[in-house]
């Protein structure tokens, strides 16, 4: 198949999107006037954020920086990249929710964007009314919706409730209905932002099958953004990897996922400042706080296969803490959990004390690759129940080097996972 036979669906040339950082305009006219009045009198700007010497004026962020991309009809393009790499911005530009700061975009065909399922749904209106509303917002005419109404209702599995206001729906029913509307659109290009994570397992399967059908059999073009590598693998025919607003890879799916996984973890760092990292759901003033972690005697956070991982951890206690313990959760580069190690010994820290600990983790069986660590400091009380005190995502990250033939086989992570357990013992039975 030569490129000449393919029809262009989307073409971006030199597309840039710039965002202003900090407060834009101040939000209210009053604030703007206040700032202006303060400046005239040579006083401090009352709208300056505490701890920030100046308001973020003139600072900009290039969410997308010079993107050139051509997508052909019938392709299912996966867009992957770390948070803040510009994936969502790209989709927003293509769905025309916002305009680029520079460059040109050409789109050949009608576009359905599913940046969210159920856009325009109103709780007071019935399922049927919402199908009309949502369909019309997505660009269908009433006649088109009428023609597809039965298919949509069938697919959604909520026929019994179709004339009930959607505010009485369960959240599962709601997203099923919303997805069904979008899945039945007649557009040639579909833009999706992780919307497949809807409903129960069976419905998710159905969604994926529908998407697969849409892209491979009906020849529609799909742009799909996800952090879930397995769905990307499942139905994308090509991926692009974004990093800091640029395309750093464009091509084969598995190769692209590999590129993304490697670039997402930095191994040049051996010391990690944890003092400003907090977990949203925990108190911002924990009883004890992990302050710093540092790999011992390491220049790079790279370890041999089977090597013991030692690091120093500093914890400061605001109150006397006597029943502390630690949890070491390993995450693979794509964010999936690998396994967790617990310290079951308890330790204690005096009030106000900054105490250092040496923590050792036995990486036995962990396959070559890049990993990040979630550190969890928890308290076990006298009744035996556990309470998290301080949990830090990506507290540490490290790489395990290639095993240099120690395993004796080319390990396929894709199927076998991240850990090689102790060898199987096989012997012939005696009877």
């Amino acid at each position, binding site marked *: 198949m030569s490129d000449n036979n393919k029809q262009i669906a989307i073409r971006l040339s030199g597309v840039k999107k710039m965002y202003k950082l900090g407060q834009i305009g101040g939000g209210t006219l009053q604030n703007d006037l206040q700032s202006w009045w303060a400046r005239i009198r040579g006083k401090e700007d009352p709208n300056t954020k505490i701890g920030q010497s100046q308001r973020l004026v003139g600072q900009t962020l290039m969410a997308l920086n010079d993107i050139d991309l051509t997508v052909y009809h019938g392709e299912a393009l996966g867009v992957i990249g770390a948070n803040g790499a510009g994936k969502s911005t790209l989709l927003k530009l293509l769905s025309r929710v916002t305009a*680029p700061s520079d460059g040109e975009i050409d789109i050949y065909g009608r576009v359905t964007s599913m940046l969210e399922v159920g856009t325009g749904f109103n709780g007071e209106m019935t399922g049927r009314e919402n199908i009309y509303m949502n369909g019309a917002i997505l660009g269908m005419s009433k006649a088109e919706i009428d023609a597809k109404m039965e298919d949509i209702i069938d697919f959604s599995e909520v026929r019994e409730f179709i004339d009930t206001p959607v505010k009485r729906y369960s959240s599962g029913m709601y997203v099923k209905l919303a997805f069904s509307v979008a899945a039945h659109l007649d557009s040639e*290009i579909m833009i999706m932002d992780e919307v497949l994570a809807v409903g129960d397992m069976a419905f998710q399967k159905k969604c994926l099958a529908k998407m697969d059908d849409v892209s491979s059999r009906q020849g529609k073009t799909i742009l799909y953004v996800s952090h879930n590598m397995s769905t990307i693998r499942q139905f994308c025919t090509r991926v692009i990897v974004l990093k800091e607003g640029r395309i750093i890879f464009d091509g084969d799916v598995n190769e692209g996922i590999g590129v993304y996984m490697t670039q997402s973890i930095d191994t040049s760092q051996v010391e990690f400042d944890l003092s400003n990292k907090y977990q949203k759901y925990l108190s911002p003033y924990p009883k004890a706080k992990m302050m710093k972690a540092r790999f011992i005697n390491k220049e790079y956070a790279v370890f041999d296969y089977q090597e013991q991982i030692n690091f120093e951890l500093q914890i400061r206690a605001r109150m006397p803490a006597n029943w502390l313990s630690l949890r070491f959760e390993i995450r693979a580069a794509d964010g999936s959990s690998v396994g967790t190690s617990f310290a079951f010994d308890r330790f204690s820290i005096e009030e106000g004390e900054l105490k250092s600990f040496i923590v050792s983790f036995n990486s036995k069986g962990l396959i070559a690759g890049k990993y990040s660590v979630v550190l969890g400091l928890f308290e076990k009380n006298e009744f035996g129940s556990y309470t998290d005190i301080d949990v830090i995502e990506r507290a540490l990250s490290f790489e395990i080097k290639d095993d240099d033939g120690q395993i004796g086989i080319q390990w396929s992570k894709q199927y076998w996972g991240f850990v090689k357990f102790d060898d199987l013992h096989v012997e012939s039975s005696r009877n």
Partner: protein
Amino acid sequence: MSEISGRHYHTHITSQKKWFELNLKEVWQYRDLIVLFTKRTFALRYKQTILGPVWIFLNPFLTSVMYTLVFGNIAKIGTHGVPHILFYLSSSAIWTFFSDSVIRNAQTFTSNANVFGKVYFPRLTVPISNVLSAAIQFGIQMIMVGMFLVYYVIQGTVSPNWMCFLLIPLILIQIGIMGMGFGIIVSSLTTKYRDLGILVSFGVQLWMYGTPIVYPLSEISEGLLKTIITINPMTMPVELFRYAVLGHGTILPQYLVLSWIVTIVVALFGIMIFNRVEKTFMDTI
């Protein structure tokens, strides 16, 4: 299997912002959406109320009764012998049409931010449907005006200029366009300054007192005040409307022309600023 017909649709997006871009063809393609938005406005407004649609009548009726008491009976403002209740019903019908067009449209961006942020459709569909629902509301109020009108015509107290009824659609178009123009200007500015959204309902109320709604223009004595009121672009349409329906109204052609000029300028400016804002307002809201 249907042939891919994508080649017929070509969208070109650039960073360049055109100053004036009225994509009426696209708006027309989304006409079903306009209808649905309009329906929804009515369907949702009286949900969870006991009286339901009765409010559509009751609300303006109570307002008119209040005006009759305050301006007619207490302040004793003359209405050229037109029964007070009829005078205030018709005046408030036409004013509500205008104020609804302004106030509803003033919230276009802020109240639809969640939908606008997720999917593209011609944003102009929202203001258009707002004006349409205000027009329907006006039509319903006119039924009530009509009932009183028939009664008083039979009584012989009112003599409308029936021929001028043909002008009413034109008056409505003008007021609708002007209301939408002012509304979308405010809504475009509220994406940056929320203050305007709060000011608008107060401003519209003030505007009402500067327009011959609770009094006829002829009741104002010559002077600066009268000049201001006459220049007000809403004055002539309102007077023309009452001239048709009630048979009394001061019509000054030069000011009617001025009013139309203002309408067109406001509408063009409104669409211009709306076009500029709709492309990137999601980044600032």
